[in-house]
């Protein structure tokens, strides 16, 4: 595959290194001369010193034949514009952007960037279980449907502890798909299945209903009266 990487900082460097080792044709576009030199010294003649947001640069880089275009600079606005130029001017099939602010995921998706990766969001997802204010962990986005699979560990304080699934009022188009108890035993939920503290609930939800689902599953009993 021909893979273009915009940004030759630490992320771009190690990404390029791995992809070269895997046998791909890689080009790193980087503005900084010293970083370009380091890439050339260590990985070979695969660095182009230029602005990866400029059409002229991307033309010279042969972006039209790239299978994958990845922008990993430390500035979200640069990653957005580089990917938008690649997508709209050179018809690159798959664009990947690094996000520094995870909240930019929505606008990037809306503007046609195929994949976004946020280290902040990834770290949050790994520690979220321990953070009482962020109990909903995204697991998987079902492409094109607007649906997501999320996981929640039911806190002991939750208002739904001890209730049967049939009694829980879920937001529209949300469903509980699987319950894994504290021993790690999975159960297919039925309407008379009782939810216990510490259960892992795997649910399918519309993206816009995530907050509502979070409230249903994790709000402490006293708050709901």
């Amino acid at each position, binding site marked *: 595959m021909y893979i273009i990487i915009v940004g030759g900082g630490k992320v771009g460097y190690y990404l390029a290194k791995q992809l070269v080792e895997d046998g791909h044709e890689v080009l790193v576009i980087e503005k900084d001369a010293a970083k370009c030199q380091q890439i050339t010294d260590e990985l070979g003649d695969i660095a182009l010193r230029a602005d990866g947001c400029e059409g002229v640069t991307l033309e010279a880089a042969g972006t039209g034949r790239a299978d994958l275009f990845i922008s990993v600079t430390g500035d979200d606005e*640069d990653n957005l514009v580089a990917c938008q130029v690649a997508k709209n001017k050179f018809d690159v099939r798959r664009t990947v952007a690094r996000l520094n602010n995870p909240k930019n995921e929505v*606008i990037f998706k809306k503007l046609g960037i195929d994949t976004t990766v946020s280290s902040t969001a990834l770290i949050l997802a790994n520690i979220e279980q321990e953070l009482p204010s962020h109990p909903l962990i995204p697991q998987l986005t079902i492409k094109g449907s607007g649906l997501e699979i999320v996981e929640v560990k039911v806190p002991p304080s939750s208002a739904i502890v001890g209730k049967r699934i049939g009694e829980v009022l879920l937001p529209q188009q949300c469903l509980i798909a699987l319950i894994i108890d504290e021993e790690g035993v999975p159960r297919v939920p039925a309407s008379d299945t009782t939810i216990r503290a510490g259960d892992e609930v795997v649910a399918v939800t519309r993206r816009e209903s995530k907050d509502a689902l979070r409230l249903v599953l994790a709000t402490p009993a006293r708050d709901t009266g």
Partner: protein
Amino acid sequence: MGCGRVGAALAALLNREGQEVTILDIDPDAFSQLPPDFKGRCFVGNGIDQDVLQRIGLAEADAFVAASPGDNRNVMASQIAKHIFGVRKVVCRIFDPIREELYHSLGLETISPTREVARLLKEALEKEAETPKGEG
């Protein structure tokens, strides 16, 4: 967004016309460019951070202008204003004419000072050339 020479001058013009103006800049010192009689609101913050834009009330704005020195910041802020906050009138300054063309074709209202100033300079040059001919 952007309280440089252009942003400050535009904010002052609109303010004198009686418009309700909010100006945002990442640098707190930038607001010294505004005239002393400026009555609008000034906010320090990052114009491509949706939380900041929410806080300054972008959702209620009738228009948004991106005039920071960075083309990519302007492009991103304008697209957030248009697609996330649903602002009806969004105008985006883009120095690079090639990028300006692309975003114009993607439906953004754009102005490239580079292109415009080049055009004005050319017009001025052509006028200069005509005057002596007319006099002589």
